[in-house]
């Protein structure tokens, strides 16, 4: 694992693919609904979702993510020691919440010597030909478009809705779309199946797994907590 700057985010995967069957923990905190799921994956058999919890956690991802992971393990009657790999959404999404999922995946994988794979969170929303939109706050949207085979055509990008033409059908959170885009969209959210689908190529070829770098898409707001002005006036 390495980051954009070449520093490792997680220690190298210690395991080996001895069976073609892989037990995967899937996580995402890029939207206000955090997702934790367990799935069995194999190159021939595809994905079987064993358990999933989608928690409307708003800005409480850090509080609720590990309880949700514990929950899906219980639901499936499995333990941490059974896991082979972790898949996590890399966003785009509001930064603070997004980092919770990414650092959780990196730390879990590190502690147990698991493979860790990052995917674009938008890829895990909906299926087939579509435009995926999510809330980027500041009156902007994160969005990406997908072709008939489900492959991403454009994005992920961040834009003002007025500045872009969204090809139909558009999918996402209908409540958000009604309030902020003033339109209806097909209901779709991040799912365990979607995360596994997005991670398919990297699950099949572990060497292809890229670094765990969040898709921030925006530079940091470089305003320090105390504004810089002449000290005698502050």
């Amino acid at each position, binding site marked *: 694992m390495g980051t954009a700057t070449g520093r490792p985010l997680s220690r190298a995967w210690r395991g080996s693919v001895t069976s073609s069957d892989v037990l995967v923990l899937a996580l995402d905190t890029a939207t206000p609904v955090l997702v934790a799921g367990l799935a069995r994956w194999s190159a021939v058999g595809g994905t079987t979702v064993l358990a999933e919890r989608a928690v409307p956690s708003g800005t409480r*991802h850090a509080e609720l993510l590990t309880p949700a992971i514990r929950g899906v393990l219980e639901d499936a009657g499995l333990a941490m020691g059974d896991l082979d790999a972790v898949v996590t959404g890399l966003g785009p999404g509001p930064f603070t919440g997004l980092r919770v999922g990414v*650092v959780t995946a990196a730390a879990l994988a590190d502690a147990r010597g698991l493979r860790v794979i990052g995917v674009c969170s938008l890829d895990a929303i909906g299926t087939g030909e579509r435009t995926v939109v999510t809330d980027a706050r500041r009156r902007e949207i994160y969005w990406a478009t997908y072709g008939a085979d489900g492959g991403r055509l454009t994005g992920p990008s961040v834009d003002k809705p007025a500045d872009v033409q969204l090809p139909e059908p558009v999918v996402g959170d209908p409540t958000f779309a009604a309030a902020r885009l003033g339109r209806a969209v097909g209901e779709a959210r991040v799912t365990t199946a979607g995360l596994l689908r997005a991670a398919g190529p990297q699950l099949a070829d572990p060497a292809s797994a890229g670094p765990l770098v969040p898709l921030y898409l925006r530079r940091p707001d470089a305003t320090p907590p105390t504004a810089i002005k002449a000290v005698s006036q502050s």
Partner: protein
Amino acid sequence: MADQPLVIGFETSCDETGVGLVRGHTLLADALATSMAEHERFGGVVPEIASRAHLEAMVPTVHRALADAGATVDDVDAIAVTSGPGLTGALLVGVAAAKAYALALGKPLYGVNHLAAHVAVDELQHGPLAEPSIALLVSGGHSSLLLVPDLAQEVQSLGRTVDDAAGEAFDKVARVLGLPFPGGPPIDRAAREGDPRAIGFPRGLTGPRDAPYDFSFSGLKTAVARWVEARQRAGEDVPVADVAASFQEAVADVLTAKAVRACRDHGVDHLVLGGGVAANSRLRALAEERCAAAGIVLRVPSPRLCTDNGAMVAALGSRLVAAGVAPSSPDLGADSSLPIEVIRG
């Protein structure tokens, strides 16, 4: 010693990513990464830059700490993490990482108070804290006087800054003097060549009717800036060393006078200093002098342990484990304004 639990501590409340390992009161590792240089040109810590840096540095810093201690992650018996106070986005990287390690390893998790950890770190150098002690915590974000009857169970706030923290004053005055960020170390260095009595800067909240244990540094900072600006307007050279020394003297004078008074008023004969500003050489010297005169035993951690680090978090975690304090609940989050009275978040 080997029968005492091995505690790992995570610190990400500001711009330092710290991971420490402690067994009992023994420091085994203190790994640190910092994004300080990335904030320098903004003259203060930019929260989003700090948070991004924490994410990159988190797992590699864990590895460095484990390697330094000659331990593996499976040797860890308990996990402690700063859950507040601090910058929310920064805190959450450490909290989420610590929760994940605790879950993956099946070990208890303790969210701890950053300020109490600044006090606890002294136990790694000077052994068990005398209780009760008075603690003077002075850093970039805090200036507090605490009464500590029992560091694992009870900490009381006696007073705090009503405006700027002491470290913040150092950082802002450094800017005025054209010195780099963070301002504490360069002011400390410049002051060595200066006369601390050259300029009589104000001592905030030291009047007879002022709150005896509260601090105010905003007026001092403004007085320094006005003094310097007046010189510059007159086209005169600014005597940087004298300004630094006189400013530093005003800060050290107020801090030590109030700390010694708190000891006297509460009948406590032990004072412990903590936080980044406790690295200041004049503050340390004046505290020595005044404590000796008042019959107070002074304890100050080495400068390296005064600034933010993971060892201090592990040290407090170790205290909590030894005292049998219950671990944090599974839905632990970050609290940017965690009150000092709350030792375990």
